[in-house]
C-alpha cells in the first residue's frame, strides 16, 4: 500500500477514526491490527519472516537482560546475526547469484525484498543493543514489541526509531488533540506534494536521461543530475513527512528524519541533516564502538570511511553504492574530518548571506557529484557521466555567443515547443518553489501563526497542485527499494 495512494488515505482515515472512537485499552490492538493489514497488502507470506524476527529479538532481549558475562554477548550476537542474516539473504544473495551467473531470473521475483526489511532489522538490532547496554528494560509484552517494530507509519521506510523514543509512547494515553491533527494533516499534505508533485515530475526527466545518458548533451545530463538531488530528497523526505504526519494524527511523535539538508554549509553538516535516523544509528552503533574520534586522527578518519562504506552497502547490493558511500566519507575526511560534529553554540554571525549561500551551493554541488554514483546503474556508467559533464563544461565558453544572440521570448518559446523542455521548465519552477518553501520553514517562522485565510490559501494551492500536476499512486518511493 503506497503512501501516495487513495487506498492509504482511505486506510489512514479509517484507522484514525476508529482509534479515537475506541476505548483506550483497545487502541494498541487496533494499531497492531492495522499494521498487520498494512504489511499484508504488500506480500502476505513475508509476514512470517517479520514475526520470526520479532520473536527472536523479543526472546533474546528478554534473556540478555537476565544473563551475565559471555552469555549476554552470545545472545546479542544471535539477535544481531539473525537480523543481519535475513537482511543479507534477501538483499545481497540475489545480487551475488546474478554476479556469479547462478540465477537466470533477472527479475529475482522470488527474492522480492520484504517491505521495510532494511529499516525494521536496524530497529530490532537497536532494541537488542540498548537492552544489552542496560539503557532499555526488556518489554514483557510481545504484542507491544511487535507494534514497536511493525508500527505502520514507519514500517516501510523509517524513520528508524529507538526504543527509548517510541516504546514509552505506547504506554501513554493519547487523547484527541487539535494541534496533533492539524500538524499531522499538514505534514501529510506537504509530504504528498513533495512526492506526487515534485519528486515524480523530476523523476520523469531523470529517468529518461539516466536510462540512455549517451543520447543527451552535457547540459541536459547536468540538469538531470541536479534534478535528481531534489528528486531523491523530495521522494524520501516526502515519505518521512507522511510517516511522521500519520503517526502524529494518532498522537505519536516520530523522530525528524530530514532537516533541510540542502541548506547545509559543509559536508559534515549535510550528514547531520540527511536521513538522520539512519546516520545516528551508524554513529551510535558503529562509529562510536569503533572508537569514534577518541583514538586519534587516522583511526577517526578510518572509522568515518567504514561507516560510510557500510551505509553505501545498506542502500544496495552494488559497487556503485559503496563508491557513493566512500566518496561521501572521503569528502568529510578532506573537509572537516568530523562525523556528526557538535553544533556551534553561537552560529557565525559575521558571515554575510552571500557567503553562506556560496558555502551551501558548494556543498550542494559536491554532494550532487556523489549522487551520480547513487543514481547510475554501475560505477562505469557513473564515471562516464562524470567525464561527459566535465568535458562539456570545458567547451561551454563556445556556446555563450549563440545563447546571447537569442531574445528571451524566443528562448522561452523554443523551450515550450518541445514536450521534453516543457517538462524541464516545470521541473525548474518546482525546484525553485521548493527551495523558497524550505528556506521559509528553516527560518522557524511559525506557519501556525499566520492568519487562517493565508493558511487555507496555502493548503488550497498545495491541493490544487496535486490535482493539476500530480500523478497519484503510479510511482513508488525510491527508498522502498532499500
Amino acid at each position, binding site marked *: 500500500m503506497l503512501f501516495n495512494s487513495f487506498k492509504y488515505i482511505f486506510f489512514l482515515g479509517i484507522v484514525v477514526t476508529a482509534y479515537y472512537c475506541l476505548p483506550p485499552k483497545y487502541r494498541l490492538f487496533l494499531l497492531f491490527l492495522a499494521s498487520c493489514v498494512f504489511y499484508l497488502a504488500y506480500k502476505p507470506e513475508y509476514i512470517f519472516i517479520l514475526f520470526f524476527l520479532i520473536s527472536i529479538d523479543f526472546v533474546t532481549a528478554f534473556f540478555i537482560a537476565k544473563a551475565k558475562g559471555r552469555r549476554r554477548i552470545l545472545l546479542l550476537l544471535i539477535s544481531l546475526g539473525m537480523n543481519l542474516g535475513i537482511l543479507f539473504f534477501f538483499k545481497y544473495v540475489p545480487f551475488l547469484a546474478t554476479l556469479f551467473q547462478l540465477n537466470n531470473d533477472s527479475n529475482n521475483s522470488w527474492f522480492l525484498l520484504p517491505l521495510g526489511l532494511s529499516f525494521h532489522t536496524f530497529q530490532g538490532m537497536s532494541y537488542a543493543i540498548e537492552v544489552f547496554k542496560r539503557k532499555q528494560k526488556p518489554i514483557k509484552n510481545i504484542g507491544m514489541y511487535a507494534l514497536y517494530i511493525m508500527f505502520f507509519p514507519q514500517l516501510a521506510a523509517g524513520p528508524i526509531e529507538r526504543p527509548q523514543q517510541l516504546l514509552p509512547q505506547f504506554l501513554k494515553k493519547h487523547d*484527541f*488533540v*487539535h494541534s496533533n*491533527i*492539524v500538524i499531522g494533516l499538514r505534514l501529510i499534505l506537504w509530504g504528498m506534494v513533495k512526492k506526487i508533485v515534485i519528486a515524480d515530475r523530476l523523476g520523469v526527466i531523470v529517468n529518461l536521461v539516466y536510462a540512455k545518458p549517451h543520447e543527451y548533451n552535457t547540459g541536459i545530463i547536468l540538469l538531470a543530475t541536479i534534478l535528481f538531488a531534489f528528486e531523491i530528497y523530495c521522494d524520501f523526505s516526502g515519505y518521512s513527512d507522511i510517516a511522521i504526519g500519520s503517526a502524529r494524527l494518532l498522537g505519536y511523535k516520530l523522530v525528524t528524519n530530514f532537516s533541510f539538508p540542502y541548506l547545509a554549509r559543509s559536508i559534515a553538516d549535510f550528514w547531520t541533516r540527511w536521513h538522520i535516523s539512519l546516520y545516528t544509528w551508524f554513529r551510535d552503533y558503529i562509529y562510536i564502538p569503533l572508537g569514534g574520534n577518541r583514538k586519534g586522527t587516522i583511526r577517526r578518519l578510518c572509522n568515518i570511511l567504514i561507516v560510510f562504506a557500510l551505509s553505501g552497502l545498506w542502500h544496495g547490493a552494488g559497487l556503485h553504492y559503496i563508491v557513493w558511500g566512500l566518496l561521501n566519507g572521503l569528502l568529510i575526511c578532506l573537509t572537516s574530518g568530523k562525523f556528526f560534529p557538535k553544533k556551534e553554540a553561537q552560529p557565525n554571525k559575521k558571515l554575510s548571506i552571500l557567503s553562506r549561500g556560496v558555502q551551501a551551493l558548494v556543498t550542494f554541488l559536491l554532494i550532487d557529484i556523489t549522487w551520480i554514483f547513487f543514481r547510475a546503474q554501475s560505477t562505469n556508467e557513473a564515471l562516464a557521466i562524470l567525464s561527459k559533464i566535465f568535458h562539456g563544461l570545458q567547451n561551454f565558453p563556445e556556446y555563450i555567443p549563440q545563447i546571447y544572440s537569442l531574445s528571451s*521570448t*524566443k528562448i*522561452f*518559446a*523554443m*523551450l*515550450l*515547443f*518541445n*514536450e521534453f523542455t*516543457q517538462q524541464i521548465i516545470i521541473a525548474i519552477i518546482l525546484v525553485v518553489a521548493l527551495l523558497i518553501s524550505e528556506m521559509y520553514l528553516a527560518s522557524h517562522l511559525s506557519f501556525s501563526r499566520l492568519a487562517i485565510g493565508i493558511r*487555507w490559501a496555502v*493548503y*488550497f494551492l498545495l*491541493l*490544487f497542485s496535486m*490535482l493539476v500536476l500530480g500523478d497519484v499512486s503510479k510511482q513508488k518511493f525510491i527508498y522502498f527499494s532499500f
Partner: protein
Amino acid sequence: MKKTFFLQFTCFWLLFLLLGYFFVFATEHFTTSYTRDDAHANLVYIAKQKTYDVVFLGSSHAITVFGNKKTYKDTSAILHKKYLTLANAGSGVLPQKIYLDYFFAEKNKTTYVVYLLDPWALYYRQWNEENYFVAEEAFRIRFLSLLLTHPFDRQVPIEYIRNKFTYLRFIPEQKIKQKILSKKDITPDLIAKTLHHYYPRHPEEKNFQHYSVILEDMIKLAKKNNSQVIFIIPPTLLAKNLPGIEEEKKLLNKLQHKYDVHFYDYSSAITDPSLYLDMDHLNRQGADLFTEKFVKPILP
C-alpha cells in the same frame, strides 16, 4: 475541541470543492474534447503520428469545400482520399504556416499539401499578424510557442490564453445557409462591399514581398517533410475584379519552377452564380462539382 475541528475541517473541504468547481468551469476550454460537428478548432483534429493523403490549407473558401465537419465523408468519398483541412476563415499565409508547422511537429505525414490561396492573403496584416484566429482554437502549449516565435501581434497569444478562461462556451457553430445565388443578386454594390471586406486599403507591394517569403518557407517546410505542394487559386465570381490576382499568378509561376510545385488557376473555373452562396463562396453543389471536376484530377 473535536467539534471545532470537525466544523473547520468540513468548511475547508466545502470551500475547496467550490473553488475546484469554479476552477474547472473556468478552464474547461483547456481540456474539453470536441467532436467534428461542433468545433472550428483545427487543433482538435490534429492528432499525432497520423498519415494523410492531402492536407488542405486556405481560408473560408477552402472550408466550404473541404470542411472537417459534416461534409467530410461525402467529400472524402469523391476524392477517394483521406484528408485534413487546416484552413481557417480569413486566414492569411502566416496563420496557415503555423498550422502546417504544428501538423509536422506532431510527427504527422501527408503526400500532398494543397493550398487554396486567395490573393488578398498576401497583402494585409489583418489576415496575418493581426489575425485573431486563435480565439476559437483549443489550447496547446506547442501551438503557443509557435505563436511566440512568429511575428504575430502581441495581443494574439495573449488572447489565445485569455479566451480559454471565459465562462461562456465560445464554440459557435457556423451554420451555413445553403442558398442559390442568382444573377440579379450580383450588384455593383455587392461587389464593392465584398472587395472592401478583403481589401480594406490599397494593396502594397512591400507586403506582398514580405508574405511571399513566408510562402516560400511553407514550401520548404513541406518539402522537408516529403510532401508535394499544390497551389490553387480558388473559384470566385470576382476573378476579373480581384486586385493582386495577376501578381499572385506570376509569383506562383515563379515558385512552380523554383521549387517544383504545382499551380492551378481555377479563379474563373466556375462562373455559374447558382453554384455560389455569395460572390466567392461555393455552395454545397458548387463544392461537390469543384471537388469532382477540378481537384480530384490533380491528385493522382
